[in-house]
C-alpha cells in the first residue's frame, strides 16, 4: 500500500515536471514563431510601402525583384480578403525563416480598402494578417497582423 502511494506521488511529480518542460517548450516556440511572423510581415509591408501608389493593387508584385521572372520568386499582392498559403518555395525564398512554421499551415490574408475623396482615389487601408497552427495544436491558430495606410503619392510634401 505504501509503495503504491509513493509511486503515485512520484508519478504525479514526474508528470508535473514533464508538463512544465513541455509548456516551456511550447511558450518558447510560440514566442519565436510570433517574432518570425512579425518579421515576415514587416518585410512584406516595407516592400509595399516602397511601391508607387498606382502599383498597390492585387496581382502586382511587391517589388520587381519578386516578379517571378528569370528565376525570381513571385511575391504578389493577393486578391483582397483571400487567404494564400505561405508554404510554397517562393515565400521560403522571400523569407527563409518561414521554414520553422512550414508544417503548420501558415497562411496570409491581405485586405485592401480603397478610400476616395471627391471621387478620386485618395488612400488605401492595408491590413495584412498571417496565421498558423500553434505548436502541438495548443491554443488554436496563432495570428499577427499589420495595418497601415498608403496615401496617394505627392511630388512634394
Amino acid at each position, binding site marked *: 500500500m505504501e*509503495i503504491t502511494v509513493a*509511486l503515485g506521488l*512520484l508519478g504525479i511529480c*514526474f508528470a508535473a*515536471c*514533464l508538463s512544465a*518542460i513541455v509548456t*516551456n*517548450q511550447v511558450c*518558447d*516556440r510560440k514566442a*519565436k514563431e510570433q*517574432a518570425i511572423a512579425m*518579421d515576415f510581415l*514587416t*518585410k512584406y509591408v*516595407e*516592400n509595399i*510601402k*516602397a*511601391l*508607387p501608389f498606382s*502599383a498597390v493593387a492585387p496581382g502586382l508584385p511587391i*517589388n*520587381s*525583384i519578386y516578379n517571378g521572372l528569370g528565376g525570381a520568386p513571385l511575391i504578389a499582392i493577393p486578391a483582397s480578403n483571400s487567404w494564400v498559403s505561405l508554404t510554397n518555395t517562393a515565400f521560403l525564398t*522571400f*523569407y*527563409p*525563416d518561414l521554414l*520553422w512554421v512550414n508544417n503548420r499551415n501558415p497562411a496570409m490574408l491581405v485586405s485592401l480598402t480603397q478610400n476616395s475623396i471627391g471621387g478620386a482615389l485618395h488612400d488605401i487601408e492595408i491590413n495584412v494578417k498571417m496565421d498558423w497552427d500553434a505548436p502541438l495544436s495548443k491554443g488554436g491558430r496563432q495570428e499577427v497582423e499589420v495595418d497601415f495606410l498608403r496615401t496617394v503619392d505627392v511630388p512634394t510634401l
Partner: protein
Amino acid sequence: MKTASTNIASRISGRAFTLVELMVAAALGVGLAGTVVLLLLQSATEQRTGFADMTVEEQAYTLQANITTCLRSMSANQGLTPNYGSALYSPTGNLLGYQSIFVFYPTNGGYVTASISYNSSNGVVLYTPNIAAPSIQTQWMTNSASSVLTELCFSSSLNLDGSQNSSLVNVLLQMNDNGFSQQSTTNNAASIYRNFSVQMRNDN
C-alpha cells in the same frame, strides 16, 4: 513463554531480502533513478537551448533594429552605394549582396557619407557615421561564446521599370549560437536566417 505472533514478527524483522524482493526493489530503484535523470537531462537541455535561442534572437533583434533605424534616416535620393570589393557570391556564383555599403545623410544642402561594414572573420559590424572621421565608430555586433554572425549582406531592389532602386535596401543575416545549445545544425532553433527590407525615408 513467547506468543506465536511475537515469534513471527521477530523472524521477519531479522531475515534478509529474498532474491525476488531484491530484484523488484532494484528494478524500482533503477526506474526511479532513470526517471529523475531523464527529467534532469531534459530540463538541462531545455535550459541550454532556451538560453541559446533567446541570446541569438536578442542579438539579431538589436542588430536589425540598429540597421533599420540607421537606414531609414538616410537619403532616399542617394540610396546606398555598395563597396564593390565586398561583394558576396553564393556557391553557384550568384551575387547575394555586399558586406559593406555607403549611405548618405543629408545635411546643410550636402551629404555626409556613412558606412556600415561587416567583417566575416570576427563577426564585427561597424557603423561609421562619417567616413571623413573614421575614428568615430559604433560597433553594433561582434561574435561571442553564445552568438556568431555568420553572414550579413546588403542589396538594393528594383523599380517597376526594371531600373535600380537603391533606396529600398534588402538585408540578409545569418546567426547561430556558436554550438552553445549542442543541437544539430539542421534543427537548431538558435540558428536563424533573417531577411528584411528597409525603405530609406529621408530627403525623398
